[in-house]
């Protein structure tokens, strides 16, 4: 299958290795990856902060860029949720944007959905001999309703030791501009999350969203816990021949 990668601006700029892992993983599974270069950003930060017009312009760019794609992979739960959940609120009912969104949004997937639902795999042949705990990010959990898909993928990884995260469903406190507008509450939520992560004894914290991982990971690093934050794609791309660097 040919899969159009929507890398997302955060991954593009700060976490290229997540994108590289996605490409390696999908090619290993026999699929073609394309990267439409006119893509930039889904507009989530603008929308969530109250800048609707800017978000609309970015939504128009997104639907134009991906209109012809069979399946769009957004390796970020919150960006996939932005398209599926919030784009339908952006265009006037019946407008061109509104119609384009209705047509495209159902084909936009998070990584675990693409693998489990569309490509029908849970064992992707990965090898990752580490202790891992999984944080099911708010947008993955409550907007995309990913359910157990990420766990099903992780359970099939060879060598992995999965640990349950206490208080998993609770927000890590990132929330985009929330982290800057309400730094104290955000930090309090982040350190509670980090404490729960550290309590599992895991070496690696895994999630489907690098924004949350940047926040929790940054808190874990500041606390010198030694726990590394790693995107699901990097764990699934890891093999014995080409193990993930952590």
């Amino acid at each position, binding site marked *: *299958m*040919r899969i*159009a990668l929507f890398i997302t*601006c955060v*991954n*593009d*700029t700060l*976490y*290229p290795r997540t*994108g*590289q892992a996605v490409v390696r993983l*999908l*090619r*290993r599974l*026999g699929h*073609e990856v*394309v*990267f*439409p*270069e006119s893509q*930039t950003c889904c507009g989530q930060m*603008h929308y*969530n902060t*109250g*800048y609707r017009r*800017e978000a609309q312009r*970015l939504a128009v*760019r997104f639907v134009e860029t991906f209109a*012809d794609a069979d399946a769009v992979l957004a390796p970020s739960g919150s960006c996939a949720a932005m398209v599926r959940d919030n784009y339908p*609120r952006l265009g006037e009912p019946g407008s061109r944007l509104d119609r384009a969104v209705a047509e495209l949004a159902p*084909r936009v997937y998070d990584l675990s*959905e*693409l693998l489990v*639902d*569309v490509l*029908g795999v849970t064992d992707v042949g990965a090898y990752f001999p580490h202790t891992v705990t999984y944080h099911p990010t*708010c947008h993955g959990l*409550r*907007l995309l*309703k990913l359910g157990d898909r990420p766990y099903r993928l992780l359970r099939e990884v060879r060598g992995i030791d999965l640990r349950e995260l206490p208080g998993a*469903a*609770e*927000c890590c*406190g*990132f929330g*985009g501009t*929330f982290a*800057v*507008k*309400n*730094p*104290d*509450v955000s*930090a*309090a*939520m*982040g*350190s509670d999350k980090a404490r729960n992560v550290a309590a599992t004894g895991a070496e690696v914290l895994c999630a489907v969203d690098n924004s949350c991982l940047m926040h929790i990971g*940054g808190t874990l*690093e500041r606390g010198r816990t030694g726990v590394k934050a790693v995107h699901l794609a990097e764990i699934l791309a890891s093999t014995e021949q080409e193990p993930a660097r952590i």
Partner: protein
Amino acid sequence: MSSVSPRSPHSAVPAEAVPAHRSATFVGMPPFPDAARAATRDSQLRHNLRKATHTIRDKRDTVVSELDDWSELRAAGKAIKDRTLRHLDHYLERLEEAVTAAGGTVHWAADAAEANAIVTGLVRATGERDVVKVKSMATQEIELNEALAEAGITAYETDLAELIVQLSEDLPSHILVPAIHRNRAEIREIFRDRMAAWGAPAPDDLSDDPRALAEAARVHLRERFLRTRVAVSGANFAVAETGTLVVLESEGNGRMCLTLPRTLISVVGIEKIVPTWSDLEVFLQLLPRSSTGERMNPYTSTWTGVTPGDGPQEFHLVLLDNGRTDVLADTVGRQALRCIRCSACLNICPVYERAGGHAYGSVYPGPIGAILTPQLRGTASPADAALPYASSLCGACYEVCPVAIDIPEVLVHLREEVTARPGHLGEKAAMGAAGWVLEGERRLGAAQRAASAARGLVPRRLPGPGAAWTDTRDIPEIPEESFRSWWRREGRHGRAETEGPAPGQLRDDPAERAGRGEDGGR
């Protein structure tokens, strides 16, 4: 808050009218981020809140998950409220007719000042100087106690948590448990130090055992119930078809107030109406499970006008607008009027749990406060403009709300209202610049190259607004190369390992779309 002549907490009140009591006010509180900062550093408060919210949260979860028709009940609750709000004028008239026919008197109050004036006038007409109160959000919203105090009338709160707040001259911090920020030891101190000034004193050897505390409150209040001839209440629901008012509570103190005095005055927001008793049935299931985590609340009191020889012989219903019709006019924001004040959204909210209720600067704290207060008061003041941002948009509130209020949707809607106002120039410029960069892939690529070139120069701790991040978190290292640049240089040359055509342009093979993955069942 738009009550009559807001006072500072320490302004003088006529000494003979109000024995040793002042009440605090939310007026002049700092904006949410500043108020929350202090709360996050108060370890006692953090502990109290965490313990209390997690306990109620877990209880709610248990009793909600035991119903397999919860989602149908929730959908029904939402639909009933929406339908009622659409035809609110009609149902309000029916309610007025029914209450009047049953011997009650209906008053209409456009705002807090009108409502306070009506209630004050009604109490004065009885010649009494004391009233007992059933816990009520509407009367807190209009700051009725303060207005009564100015008229020389003392309002005695009879809900246990409300009593704690009143005795300690504190502010409520939760819809259901206004003293949730206090623990047992603190409550014992408050009872020992303050009860005597208000009536029957607490015993000298009062312990912090919950039963002993409840008993002290019972003794203190019992005498008050028997002596006071006027009561003021709110209502959880008003049934239009029969003109019946409904109060749900746990302690029985509300029922004392509703039955013992001679005159009963109920101040009720116009959105509290439900058309029929069969509609009420839905909410009697939704509310207790969502609020206290009980299958059924211990006391449900209903009253219809006046019953000769039984209960209050004079009944007044004050129907309160106070900004609600403005909220109704907002097609996105009006869903906030579905709220049945269960407080499930507070108990689940990770922000509320760390910031506490006072930080919201209103009688309505937590997620519902963050969407209701800015609608009732507007977003002109810095404190009100900060409220829609007091959320990480995690969506937990929407998930637990028994009437499916999409709180994140309303928060974002109100943020749009805030950014449409003048000001926020720095942020607007930053958002505009980010938008400009992101609206062109070349501009984005150039920005990424500039960032990569400067990667060695980025300090671990940022100055200015960046410090909000680096004060508590490390920042990620900027990679040598963006994904985009890697793709151009190397990534696009690879291919699928086992099958599939060579990578090509995205748009060159529409035929292939026929085989797309519609099997993605979600």
